[in-house]
């Protein structure tokens, strides 16, 4: 690999990656879902009315992302193909995810499986699931 030696930043990138892996492992601690869950990375949040899921899945065709909900389990699946694999090209750094992916999230019991919205913007799939009316906090008037 003659070309690799021309790119000294390669080594620093590797060190950086190691450092990041170490830091993230220490800071967040191992969760039941693992330290990092693979591709796409997921962030989950909730409000009294909804559950919000953000899947960091850049460079996909929105029509080709498979989002399914079954018995309170949300599945996000699809495939990411490699770009720019030209004939006679040398690949110096190869870190981006490539291939089929599938991530499964178990949702809380009070969600309404018929009120789900999914949007794809700037490479992030945002799934918003509404909670059932009956489960939403209500103020009870004291007579």
């Amino acid at each position, binding site marked *: 690999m003659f*070309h690799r030696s*021309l*790119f*000294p*930043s390669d080594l620093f*990138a590797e060190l*950086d*990656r190691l450092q*990041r892996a170490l*830091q*993230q492992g220490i*800071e*967040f601690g191992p*969760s039941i*879902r693992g330290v*990092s*869950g693979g591709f*796409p*990375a*997921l*962030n*989950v*949040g*909730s*409000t*009294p009315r*909804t559950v*919000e899921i*953000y899947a*960091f*899945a*850049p*460079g*996909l065709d929105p029509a080709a992302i498979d989002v399914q909900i079954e018995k309170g389990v949300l599945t996000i699946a699809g495939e990411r193909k*490699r*770009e*720019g*694999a*030209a004939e*006679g*090209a*040398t*690949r*110096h*750094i*190869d*870190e*981006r*995810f490539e291939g089929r992916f599938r991530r499964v999230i178990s949702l809380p019991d009070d969600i309404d499986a018929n009120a789900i919205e999914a*949007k*794809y*913007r*700037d*490479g*992030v799939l*945002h799934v*918003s699931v509404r909670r059932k009316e009956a489960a939403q906090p209500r103020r009870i008037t004291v007579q």
Partner: protein
Amino acid sequence: MSEKTEVARTPEPTRDAGTLLPPVDVVEDGGGITLYADLPGVPKDRLSLQVEADTLTIEGEIALDVPEGMEASHAEVGRPRYRRVFTLSKELDTDKVAAEYRQGVLTLRIPKAEHAKPRRIDVQVM
């Protein structure tokens, strides 16, 4: 505060721990280098590219559509900013960098300077 102190206080761009390191692919062919970087969640106007001397800096800030009062319960992307710095080699023509950004993927094309492009040398038969 005068402007001077403000400038003096601006920290040098360092590899601080507060940023995410975006994964990249770098492919080289005869005409130049193509760099792909994953920056999901960064809108086009929050993306910044900088070439200074032989250093390329990619920075981006994540802006998600978050409903009011949301509480995060699980986060694998724990920081709001990406940053990555590359050292470019001399044969690359940094004046002709072309960038494209689509659905969280940045594609950078850095051509080689004319003199650095591969040439075929004819072998003369005597």
